[in-house]
Each structure stands twice: as C-alpha cells, then as structure tokens.
C-alpha cells in the first residue's frame, strides 16, 4: 500500500500586482500533481528553480493546504502539521541558544518523552549521525555539515514515519555533501523511513533516489518518474565508484534530458518576469 498519495493536487497563490491592484492574478505553483510514494521508499523530487518543489514539501508537512485535490498519508488526508513527519530544512533551523544535544531534545520535548529518557535518546541519535563528542557544542561552534547532521538527528529522534528533506545539502561544499549523502543512505537503510528528498542536483537525485520524480517548470507538474536501480550498488559500489559507473551516467543523462528543456523554459520565465 502506498504511504503517501497525491491526488490531482493544485496549489495557487494570490499575487499582488504592483502596478494595478485591481488586477488580481493567481500564481499557480503546482498544477495537478499525481504521485504515489510507497512505505519505506526513498523518492527524490528534482526540478528547475521556482517549479514549486518547496511548495510540495510544505503541503506534505501540513504547513499549507492544497487549493484543490488532496494528499493522503496512510490513506487519511493531511490536515495539518504532525510529528509523523519530520522536516529537514536547507538552513538547518537549529536553535542557536541550545547545544547539539539540546537541539535534538527539542524534537523529543514535543512528543512528551520523559525528561530522563530524552537525554539518552538524543545521545543515541547524535551517535547515529556520527556526532558523538559534540553534544555540548552550540551551533555556531559546528561546521555546516555538522549542523545539518544535528538537524537530521533531531528529525529522526522523535521517530516520524516520513522524513521530508528540503534541499538539505545545498548549502554544503561538495566533499561534505557527498559524505552526508552516503550517511543518509546508510541511515535510511537502517531505519526504514520513507524519505521525500527535494533537490535541484541531478547527480544527487540519481545517487540517492530509488525513484526520481522530474518536475516541469512553472506551473509545476510531475513530468516523469524515473525508477533508479543499480546492479552496481548491489555489488557494494559506493561513492565515486558508483558515480563513475556507466549505469550512473545513463541515468544522469536521462534525467538531464528530461530537465534540460524545463530549465531553459524556467529561465525564460524568470527573464520575462524581471522585465515586466
């Protein structure tokens, strides 16, 4: 059974026209999204900038409601935010006045885990993301990669079924990003969470996803869903070995071809907007 189902989901925003206010236009961010995500699946959504990827995630997180259509989680429509979904933000969203441990505990406080248990659980999850020994550091004393590890630990600690990740590695340097990608796959395999991962990086999408949903430029639609499976991964290939395999190159090219026209169109749209 599918864990998450998007049924004809459309989201529009009212826009304010600066020149004449009476002309109320609507900005369509997402237009008729249909998507099914199975339990325990790792799905990557990739698309050009401004295609509504983040809106998709906000809808899943219950931070906004669809204009029409519905999103089902375990067969029930999403009506608001909940602790059955954990969000990892691009900007880490760590509380700067709390230590790494305190930040992980923050998620647990919302679920009503008893105080003593919280500390142990938080330590356990910091250990899972490889941050043992950094429990008492404040966010400003941690590197970008470490901060994102803390944020991932926080989202995992309160044990949501679904992990929603909004370009979590976009602000990191290439080496850190690659090591975190491996780490994320390892964590996913160990915990069996359903992961919805948003990115604009094709390599990242191919490397991480079991399924890659390619989106069109505005208004956002799902253009195609590409199932990704590597024989090579089965053989234990990882990192650069996998990235340089012919299979990987083929997938990358396939998605690049799907995206290419969309990216050009998105840029054209942006230009038109800037000149108006």
């Amino acid at each position, binding site marked *: 059974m599918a864990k998450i189902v998007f049924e004809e989901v459309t989201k529009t925003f009212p826009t304010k026209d600066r020149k004449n206010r009476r002309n109320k236009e609507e900005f369509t961010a997402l237009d008729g999204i249909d998507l099914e995500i199975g339990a325990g699946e790792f799905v990557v959504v990739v698309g050009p900038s401004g295609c509504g990827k983040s809106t998709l995630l906000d809808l899943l997180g219950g931070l906004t409601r669809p204009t029409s259509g519905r999103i089902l989680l375990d067969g029930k429509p999403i009506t*608001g935010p909940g602790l059955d979904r954990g969000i990892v933000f691009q900007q880490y969203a760590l509380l700067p006045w709390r230590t790494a441990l305190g930040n992980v505990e923050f998620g647990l406080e919302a679920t009503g885990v008893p105080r003593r248990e919280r500390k142990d659980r938080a330590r356990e999850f910091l250990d899972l993301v490889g941050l043992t020994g950094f429990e008492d550091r404040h966010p400003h004393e941690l590197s970008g990669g470490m901060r994102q590890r803390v944020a991932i630990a926080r989202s995992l600690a309160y044990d949501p079924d679904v992990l929603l990740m909004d370009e979590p590695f976009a602000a990191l340097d290439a080496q850190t990003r690659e090591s975190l990608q491996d780490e994320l796959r390892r964590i996913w395999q160990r915990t069996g969470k359903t992961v919805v991962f948003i990115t604009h990086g094709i390599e990242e999408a191919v490397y991480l996803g079991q399924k890659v949903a390619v989106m069109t430029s505005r208004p956002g639609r799902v253009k195609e869903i590409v199932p990704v499976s590597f024989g090579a991964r089965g053989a234990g290939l990882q990192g650069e070995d996998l990235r340089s395999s012919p299979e990987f190159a083929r997938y990358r090219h396939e998605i690049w071809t799907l995206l290419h026209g969309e990216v050009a169109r998105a840029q054209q749209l942006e230009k038109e907007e800037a000149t108006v």
Partner: protein
Amino acid sequence: MTTNVTTPATDAPAGQETARADSAPAAPTAPASALAEAPATGTGAAPASRAASPGAGRSTGRTGRAPSAVRQAARALGRWLRAAAVRSAALVALLALWETAPRLGLVDATFLPPVSEVATAWWELLGNGQLGQHTRASLARSFGGFGIAVAVAVPLGLLIGWYRPVAALLGPLLEVFRNTAALALLPVFVLLLGIGETSKVSIVVYACVWPVLLNTISAVGNADPTLVRLARSMDLSTPRLFQKVILPSSVPAIFTGIRLAGAVSILVLVAAEMIGAKAGLGYLINASQYNFAIPQMYAGIITISAVGVAFNQLLVTIERRLSTWRVPA
C-alpha cells in the same frame, strides 16, 4: 558620567562668596594623593595575587614544568596589570585634575572643591546615615519603577510583536511616545498624581517602558522565520512556540532595551527628585546646592554615578550570562 561631575559647577550661583569659609577648610594634601592612587593600587594588587596563586599551585604540583608555569603566571600578571592601568588611567587623570585644578586656582574652589574635600564630605554623609537614607529612597523608586516597567513591557511587547497588524497600527504612536522626553511630561504627572511617591515612580515607569517595549516588539518581529516554520511543522502550540522559540531568541534584544531602561530609570528619577521630594539623591544634590554645601552636593553626584555604573554593570553581567550562545561578532 564625567559630564555630570563637571556641569553643576557652571550652574552654581555666582557671586555668593560669603559662604566660602565653611565650605573650603584647608585640607591636608596627603589624603588627596592617597585617594587618587587608591584605585590603581587597589585593583592592581588584588587580582595580582589571584593570578599568581594558581600558577604557584601548578608549579608545586608538576615540578618538571615549574619554571614555565611561573613564567606564564608572571606574564599573565603583567598583561593584567597593563590592562588595569589602561582601564583606570583616564579615571585617575580626571581625579588628579579635579584635585589639582582648584588647588592651583585654575577654577574657583568654592564651586569646584578638590576631590579630597568631596570625599571627606561623602564620608561624613555616610557616617551620619544621610547618604544611606537618600540612596535607599532613590533606589526604591528607581528599581520599583524599573521593575514595574519591565514586568509590563516585556509581555506586552511579545504580544504586540506577534500580531503584526497590531504592531503596524501602534508603531507610529509608540514612536511618538518614546520620543516625547519623559521629563517634559513631569508637570503633567505632578498635576495628575500629585507630588508624592506615585508621580515619581510613575514617571520612572513611563520612561523605562518605551525602550523595553520597542526592543521587545522588534525582537519578536526579527525572530528567525525558519525556526518558526520548524516549530510549526512540529505542531507546537502558540504558547509553546513562545516559550521555546520566540522568547529565547528575543532575549539579547530585549536585554539591550532593559539596559537602556536601567540607565534611564536613574536619570529620570534624579531629575524628578530635584523638582519635588523630601528624600532621595536628587533631593540631596538640590538641597545641598541651596544650602551652599557644595562638597555635599558633589558627594551626591558621585553617589549617583556609582549607582548608575554599578546597575549597568549588573545588567551587563546578567546579559552576558543569558546570551553566551550568541555568535561572537
């Protein structure tokens, strides 16, 4: 603070030299120089022993590294002494100038008596309990008003800041109030509330509310939107959101407002006490001037400076304690 010390000299009524005899007894120079040097030696010596003792302790513990530990302690001590000298130099210079200028006849010693005489007067006032009584009266009003203002302004600011339309609506009005000098409103307060304690505490409350309120409102408005989104995504209720996200992130900005209010509370109170009061440091200064007890007047002024500096230092310490997490700039 230094301006406070010097300006009243020009305000003092000129041409009343009859009272000179009782206000300018020829004091020996010895206590003066002792007083001028006291801060330098006093502050220098105490930490010196403090800095030296751990070094000594370490050297006995680990004999192999003893010489380097001693040298390190000595270097730390030297650095500390130099820092202390730099920090107190200007203050010492001011005191020296204050002592010598009247003695050399550069200024009229009637209106600006040497600092040693002021110190004697201060000591007498302390001895006969007057200083304690006036300081207590002032502090009660000042802290009372300050406390009420903080207790009212912080929660109010959090509320106004959270509801953006309310903030937009009240913003201009608050700006007008803040920029209306509190002392300009003192006559209004006296008319409405009389010249008793109520009007004095009220004017302190009034003057202290604005910096705290406006800083709190802007702190809430500047709270990191991603953190708010995070809290929302975790389905935190609004009171929880305030308790766990908005309030802690606002603490540094709120404290800036509180520190401003601390300075304002003393400033406004002293002025209010000069106009209508029977006790308090402002009253002491004003009454001393009327009775031509000039050293006593300066003693009052110095006490106010000391209270102001101490209060500010206290607030700075609390602020530092509460915002250690901030990224060092």
